[in-house]
């Protein structure tokens, strides 16, 4: 496989200039994630409103291009979605990385699906899968109000 399939333009762009980066004022939920293999860290800030909609979502952290791009894309895809819809986007992403490439989600438009798909190349690089999934597990943890830091060595993928 050509490495360019992993480092697609869309990933490089998000890696270089991540969206929704920084601490969120007035967040309602937060969670930390850590990948002990490489030292990558991510902190997710989330504002759920009264209707349990993701009103805003930002992150801080350091990591490789894959991990920063994955986090940045995630914030774009989940922002503005309902709690349930956000959960199904997370599940769709994780199952894409695990096995299926096809994404059947009515919650995402074509453009957003392409963004998510741009991360599917990670599957070919088993040592890099956790770079891509760290933020998504951390978001789940934030949404569920868990206190403990997410550690890539103790989650499934």
């Amino acid at each position, binding site marked *: 496989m*050509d*490495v*360019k399939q*992993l*480092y697609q333009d869309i990933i*490089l762009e998000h890696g*270089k200039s991540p969206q929704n980066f920084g601490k969120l004022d007035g967040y309602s939920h937060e969670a930390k994630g850590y990948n002990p*293999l*490489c*030292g*990558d*860290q991510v902190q997710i800030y989330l504002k759920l409103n009264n209707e349990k909609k993701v009103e805003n979502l930002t992150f801080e952290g*350091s*990591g*490789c*291009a*894959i991990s920063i791009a994955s986090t940045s894309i995630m914030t774009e895809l989940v922002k503005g979605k309902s709690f349930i819809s956000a959960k199904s986007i997370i599940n769709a992403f994780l199952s894409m990385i695990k096995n299926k490439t096809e994404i059947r989600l009515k919650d995402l438009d074509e453009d957003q699906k392409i963004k998510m798909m741009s991360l599917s190349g990670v599957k070919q*690089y088993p*040592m*890099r899968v956790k*770079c891509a999934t760290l933020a998504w597990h951390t978001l789940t943890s934030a949404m569920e109000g868990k206190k403990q830091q997410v550690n890539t060595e103790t989650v499934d993928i």
Partner: protein
Amino acid sequence: MDINTIKSQFPIFSKKINGKPLTYLDSSNSSQKPIGVINSLDFFYKNEFSNIGRSIHSLAVNATNKFEETRMSVKNFINASHKEEIIFTKNATEAINLVATTFGQQNIKKGDEILITELEHHSNYVPWHYLRETRGAIIKFAPINDDGDIIIEELKNLITSKTKIIAVTHLSNVTGTIVPIKEIVEIARKKNIPVLVDGCQSTPHIKVDVKDLDCDFYAISCHKVYGPTGVGILYAKKKWLEKLPPYIGGGGMISEVKKDKISYAPLPEKYEAGTMPTAEVVAFCESIKFIKSIGIENIVKHEKEVTNYALDKLKKINSVNIVGNPKNKAGVISFTIKGIHPHDISTIVDEEGVAIRAGHHCCQILHERLGLTATARASIGIYNSKEDIDVLCESIEKCRKVFELK
């Protein structure tokens, strides 16, 4: 010295990685194995296998002799005084744990100090941390300067009447710093403090003479010395091994076992409980033969040449930054590229068959001190040539291209 002749002794270099010839620059992590070592493992299992030291049949006698031959060979290789000073362990980590645990039991009480340095690998910090947790010891870190050299004056100043042991690496696995062990031992001697040296990185790359260093303990990782995995070595001065309590208890390390008392075996068996990695220890003899056939002076000279070539060439690449600039540097080159995370570098160069390591290399304290979370590391072994460095630099150019760096 012909590197191609040396390289041809390593079967792995005939394999392709991602369709490309293997450019192996991860020897600080683990070295590749010469055919003599591989053949020895194969031969021993096919023709000579038996457990050692227990049975009196012919196979057992022969296996025991071979095992002891390696001990003798290690003793001569590092210039120990007695063969009983050579203890085989699972790995160098276990060797350091052996010392930390037994020395700690006998000599460390609440408030006592253990002096290590900011250069240390986790395996020369975590075992001492256990003594902080279990016995209330205090761990002090001798600082380094920005070049990656230990500031000896500061190390000296950190020694107090409570300092019970100094544990320090001989060669940093991040900056390649060759630490002036003799100087540190001389300082420690004056205060009667024992010194443990982590020799994982030094043993395959520079001359190790424990008599000359005069250290009390020296830990070696055999898989980094072109040997099999599963074997480490603890060198310790006889007086310590006689004085310290045993570590792991079980078969082979006892003299007499009664319901109300147990006496322990003499050295070195006292510290070698249970079945040992027999074939691996026997095969390690071939690693020493391999190194001796080249000569450690020739190894030092060759690796220095390749290292200097690599440093010159890497420094010329825009946005590459070499980590540390120690006075005396071996073939361990950690670097960063502005704008590309080390994990991305490693993935991209791997496509070109280049094996480097990326991360904190089990040295989080050192990375924190240098203000880094991760680095990429190219480390040199006897089989590496200037051509390998050329391939590395080309693959770094590819990283820059993928990331569209100027």
